């Protein structure tokens, strides 16, 4: 209960500071939009030269991309860990976090919240609606709940992987250049998984389960029955991923000694 009330207090505080600098907010949102546009342009240009990608149509691929943007936006809003090493380990901020009465991971999530990332879900929903209507997909009333469940699952997978990566900082001193590259790899979960060699398919499913943030759950809405079992597995993978990463984090915090500065 205490955690919930702290969460909302942080959120309120966050809104106040952010709304003070509205231009910054606008610029951040625009640059998010541009990042999404880059990927969209890639898809549109490619489909200017071909009609099918391994049996998947342009609108289906667009739908997957639209879906992907939603869990990604949720992840981006709450798990800003990409500069964890510099900010918390190198500069010694972690010492302060550990004196707080909250779980250290939760404390960092609160401090680094970026709620405006949630706006990134809006283009995602628009793309889904556009592609969905062109494919004349049928929706049931319960699909809303399935959607929410799959989005949470996907966001937890992202969170799990990036928390685990941040945890490396507790064990190794050197700064890591892995994070930006991981962002790259994550984008391959947005394409039909059957185009890849089985090694990559295996990696994207079981090692770095990014396929569960894009193609698998989207397949449910696209009525691709052969992927249903994977689609419904998404929340489970999300829970497992997240739990493992929290365990790693706690183990890392126990090893943490501070930089001494």
């Amino acid at each position, binding site marked *: 209960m205490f955690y919930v009330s702290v969460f909302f207090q942080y959120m309120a505080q966050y809104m106040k500071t952010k709304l003070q600098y509205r231009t910054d907010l606008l610029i*951040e949102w625009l640059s998010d939009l541009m990042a999404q546009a880059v990927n969209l342009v890639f898809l549109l*240009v490619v489909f200017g*030269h071909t009609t099918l990608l391994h049996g998947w149509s342009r609108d289906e691929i667009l739908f997957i991309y639209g879906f992907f943007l939603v869990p990604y936006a949720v992840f981006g809003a709450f798990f800003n860990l990409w500069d964890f090493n510099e900010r918390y380990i190198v500069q010694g901020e972690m010492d302060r976090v550990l004196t707080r009465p909250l779980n250290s991971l939760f404390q960092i999530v609160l401090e680094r919240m970026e709620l405006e990332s949630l706006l990134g879900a809006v283009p995602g929903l628009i793309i889904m609606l556009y592609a969905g209507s062109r494919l004349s997909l049928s929706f049931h009333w319960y699909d809303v709940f399935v959607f929410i469940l799959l989005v949470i699952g996907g966001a937890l997978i992202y969170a799990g992987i990036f928390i685990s990566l941040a945890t490396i900082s507790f064990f190794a001193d*050197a700064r890591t250049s892995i994070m930006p590259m991981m962002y790259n790899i994550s984008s391959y979960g947005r394409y039909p998984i059957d185009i890849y060699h089985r090694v990559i398919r295996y990696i994207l499913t079981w090692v770095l389960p990014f396929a569960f943030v894009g193609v698998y759950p989207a397949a449910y809405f696209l009525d691709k029955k052969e992927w249903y079992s994977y689609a419904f597995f998404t929340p489970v993978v999300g829970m497992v991923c997240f739990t493992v990463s929290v365990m790693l984090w706690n183990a890392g915090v126990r090893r943490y000694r501070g930089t001494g500065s």
Partner: protein
Amino acid sequence: MDKYMEMVRIRFLMMLAYRTNYYTGILIYAINIAAYYFLWSAIYGGKSSMQGMSLGQMTTYVAISWLARAFYFNNLDREIAMEIRDGKVAVELIRPYSYLGMKAVQGLGEGLFRLFFLSLPGLFFVSLFLPLQFPGHAKTWLSFGLSLLFSFIIFSELNLLAGVVTFFTFRNEGLLRAKRFIIDLFSGLILPLSFYPDWAQQLMAYMPFQAISYIPSMIITESFQGAAVSDGLFTQAAWCVLLWFPIALLWRVAKKRLVVQGG
């Protein structure tokens, strides 16, 4: 000149201290390129060529453009913006060297390091299991080397330009981010410009971004033949010179109106 060479060396050694990271980097790069390869195979879907490029050429194009990026990429714009915000730039300006020149050679030091410790081993590793096509002519390789050097100069000039603009705006996080996406999209990194619709191609021909990635990658895949190679190199050289003027001009003004807040 000696002090600049020394700076290249120091940056190189600084990066060398963190080399273990780059082993994982090579692996991740390999996964990346392999995934791209399968994506493009699916896009080709059995077609023998698209826009005059075969699948082999396309794979090589993608592999080389990411490796070339490791060489020409740097964060000079962010570094300059940060030094202005922290007030460190005041100290930099009284040092007996050209501030922008020093920044550029630091970028070169980093780039050379990544060329030797990320790009070349990465390329070797990837060529073990992907069908990359390398040109047999020494002339192509020479043109590519020259082209890559131009890429570095143009990319750094754009970064310096964005950095110098910070002298006037103080905060330009948004501009820097926007520049990154524009370069990703218009430089031909994510896909060859020849795939874009005609009107877009005509527009891009007037911009400096194609000189960063598209031209060198087209040269190494031998998608550019004969006169196209020398035209490409000439375009790059022209942009290297042209971009220098706005930087020099803005820099002259910026030095005079620099305000250091604290430091």
